[in-house]
């Protein structure tokens, strides 16, 4: 039971935090479209995106049961490494100031400006463009959430805790978005991405190793150790990348 909780909490927390980031990004685009073109095309696109997402999960979900466990762990582990380390790398570079922070308010302004520019070019097609924009945003961010849930939950029967974490995050963001009608710019997105990148990378190493037949010392608790190592190395990388750069000669 203790070992189970050792895996349930990290899986649920990682799914919650990762889904929070994805839901905030989708909400920003839906709000931008709703601001420029109203809720009808924004809602239509978002609902169609959710429907396609649900159909994809219903159609492909049962196939997971037919994949051999070691192969499933290996494939999911490698995808988690690609996905998690990509997030972690970006979060390190943003924390160090090498690349600019992602800002929901800026993303909102950019999206509304693009839609207004398209409105000037072609008013007639705009409702379709607006609906497609929210459809694409909800589908892509939703696919990321589904991937994270499957990746964190499929290997050890943790699909339910991971789904609960993801659903709680999506419902919380949708609820807050409906109330405040503004992009959630105060969410510390880079800190979340840093934490989630660490956790996904740790899960990625664990599942890939399991897929290769590595008997990790401590079993499931090895994930905590991997997360600590990724956190230590990433924090050191932020400090090193943040060091004062030599001035270029003018």
């Amino acid at each position, binding site marked *: 039971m203790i070992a189970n909780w050792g895996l349930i909490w990290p899986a649920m927390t990682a799914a919650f935090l990762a889904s929070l980031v994805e839901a905030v990004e989708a909400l920003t685009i839906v709000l931008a479209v709703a601001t420029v073109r109203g809720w009808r095309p924004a809602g239509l696109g978002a609902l169609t995106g959710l429907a396609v997402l649900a159909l994809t999960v219903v159609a492909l979900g049962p196939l997971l049961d037919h994949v051999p466990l070691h192969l499933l762990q290996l494939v999911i582990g490698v995808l988690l490494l690609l996905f998690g380390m990509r997030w972690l790398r970006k979060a390190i570079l943003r924390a160090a100031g*090498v690349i600019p922070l992602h800002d929901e308010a800026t993303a909102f302004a950019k999206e509304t400006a693009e839609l207004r520019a398209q409105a000037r070019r072609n008013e007639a097609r705009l409702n379709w463009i607006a609906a497609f924009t929210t459809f694409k945003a909800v589908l892509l961010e939703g696919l990321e959430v589904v991937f994270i849930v499957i990746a964190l939950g499929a290997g050890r029967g943790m699909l339910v805790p991971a789904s609960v974490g993801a659903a709680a995050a999506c419902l919380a963001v949708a609820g807050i978005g409906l109330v405040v009608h503004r992009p959630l710019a105060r969410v510390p997105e880079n800190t979340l991405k840093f934490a989630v990148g660490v956790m996904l990378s740790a899960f990625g190493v664990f599942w890939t190793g399991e897929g290769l037949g590595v008997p990790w010392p401590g079993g499931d608790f090895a994930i905590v150790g991997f997360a600590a190592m990724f956190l230590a190395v990433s924090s050191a990388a932020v400090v090193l990348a943040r060091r004062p750069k030599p001035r270029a000669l003018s």
Partner: protein
Amino acid sequence: MMILLRELAGLFIDDGALALAILAVVGLAGMAAVLMPNTPLAAGAVLLFGCLAALVSSVARTDRH
């Protein structure tokens, strides 16, 4: 559809060199698991430290540029 597929691929691959390095590390860990079946932790060590090295090297490369 092409836009969707391109964006889907982008979920996993941002810095191509980092993606290649991760795949190379997994390949090396797989080779270690096959060649040293009596010491399976060697594959785990290759995997863990290889991934950490790939991450640091990718950050350092981007920082230099």
